[in-house]
């Protein structure tokens, strides 16, 4: 900025009108940038800086004592339960991503290449999007009513005589967490994969088929 200002001041003699117009334009641009930059600073950078500041200190008698030590960081990566919880979250996240992608890809592929009718395409698209309108919590509870001991799944299994007692295996374990998370994030995967597949030019697919691929 300083450099620019000096330059324009020196050139001011040669093209004063253009220079001042540019400066004005730059100033108005800065004005427009101010709100988002201020927002980002106050609500993102500042809290992170505070958090980082606290992370270097420690607590004593329930009070924060400032300091300069990486002890807290060492604890996170060595002590239970921190490490175990972090790894478990990462594993569930990874599994959810993989499962969502596996479920989403065929649908996105069909949507992009096989569904010809615009109406059918729209209907499928809507079916993918509608779950987004319900909150995360509601969707989690919906699965509870399906998987729980008094839920639809158990009622069906008992009704069919597959089991006498409600099966408790479905709920409160990693399986149900994965299932629910996969359900929640599959639409996201469908939309992002579909958006990419849609951009593949038809001529590339035609060229490949013309050269004897697929079919």
């Amino acid at each position, binding site marked *: 900025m300083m450099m620019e200002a000096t330059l324009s001041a020196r050139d001011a003699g040669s093209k004063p009108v253009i220079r001042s117009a540019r400066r004005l334009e730059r100033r108005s641009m800065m004005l427009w940038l101010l709100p988002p930059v201020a927002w980002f600073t106050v609500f993102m950078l500042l809290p992170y800086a505070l958090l980082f500041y606290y992370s270097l200190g420690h607590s004593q008698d329930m009070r924060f004592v400032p300091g300069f030590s990486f002890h807290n960081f060492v604890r996170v990566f060595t002590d239970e339960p921190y490490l175990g919880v972090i790894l478990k979250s990462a594993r569930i996240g990874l599994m959810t991503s993989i499962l969502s992608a596996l479920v989403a890809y065929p649908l996105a592929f069909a949507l992009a290449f096989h569904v010809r009718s*615009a109406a059918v395409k729209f209907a499928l698209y809507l079916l993918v999007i509608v779950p987004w309108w319900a909150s995360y919590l509601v969707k989690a509870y919906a699965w509870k009513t399906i998987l729980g001991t008094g839920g639809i799944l158990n009622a069906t299994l008992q009704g069919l005589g597959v089991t006498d007692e409600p099966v408790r295996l479905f709920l409160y374990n990693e399986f149900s967490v994965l299932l629910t998370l996969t359900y929640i994030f599959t639409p996201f995967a469908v939309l992002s994969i579909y958006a990419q597949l849609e951009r593949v*030019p038809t*001529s*590339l697919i*035609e*060229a*490949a*088929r*013309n*050269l*004897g*691929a*697929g*079919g």
Partner: protein
Amino acid sequence: MTAEIELRDLRKRFDAHGAGAGGWAVDGVSMRIGRGQFVTLLGPSGCGKTTTLRMIAGFEMPTSGAILRDGQDITDQPVTDRDMRMVFQDFALFPNMTVAENVAFGLKTRRMRGRYSAADIRRRVGEYLDLVRLGGHSDKRPHQLSGGQKQRVSLARALITDPEVVLFDEPLGSLDAHLRKVMQIELIRLHRELGKTFIYVTHDQDEAMAMSDAIAVMNGGKVLQFGSPRDIYDRPTSRYVAGFIGHAHIVEATVAECDASGLTVTTGSGETVRLNEKAAVTRGQSVGLMLRAEDLSLGEPGEGELHGQVADSLYRGEYIEYVVELNGNAGVVHVHEPTHLAPFAHGAAVALKVNANKAHVVGGA
């Protein structure tokens, strides 16, 4: 001549929401294309030429009609089985592959498995890259190539599997004028060297004239005329073809006489022109007298069959182009005159001499 590809009353209508909704994109195209011929489908955009080509390739299913190959009906045959390679206007090179991988694609498909060893493929890719003069570019990615180079890769990719028929969908459409000329010569050379059947789609009449053995002029989903470039240029059968190819001028006239050696027509302004053509017309029939710039020459009044006034003259370097307004509101014609002759002034009354061997009449209103 046996027809390698035969189109029988081919028709195509797209769904209501598609392009050309409701109407016939292709409306009864019949054509016989001989082995080794270079045939061009020529017409303005929307005339059905690309749809016809795409039906031959198998990308579009005809609404009715049939496509035959060596007498066998292939209308329902899938694209992958047709053994016809297409060269696309946007090149359609696979961006995730190198030039060599793109070219080798057709040799590596499942149905080709086992037919070529890795060494065979490498040697063949090298040969075909040399054929299209792209040796040394094999490890580049498509985005590193110029438009002309991309089209050469696309050509090599199409030719490497040794197909009998190669289809071209406006392959030079996205290249600049100079490169287009270079590639035209290249395509003619490849056609001559390889002896394959080329079916070529373009809206550029110069391209069609320069390269083709035969041209099908299309409009409104129909083939208006199918013949050699010379036939189509010299003896168009309709006003549309006469106007579309080489910008001929049509002067309204009536047949005054016709006999074994030719015919005489009278224009609206009462002037008579003699033609050495044996046309299937009858006396009194109204026809269009087709006049091309190069078949006319200017003279002083009385030195030619038609008369008019010089409205404009344009110095073109190779020749002077005169714009002459014909007497009796018969329209304007352009005449090319050698530059060494004494120029005619603006507004001068002139006579037009018609080359009786080249003048031609087209029937119909």
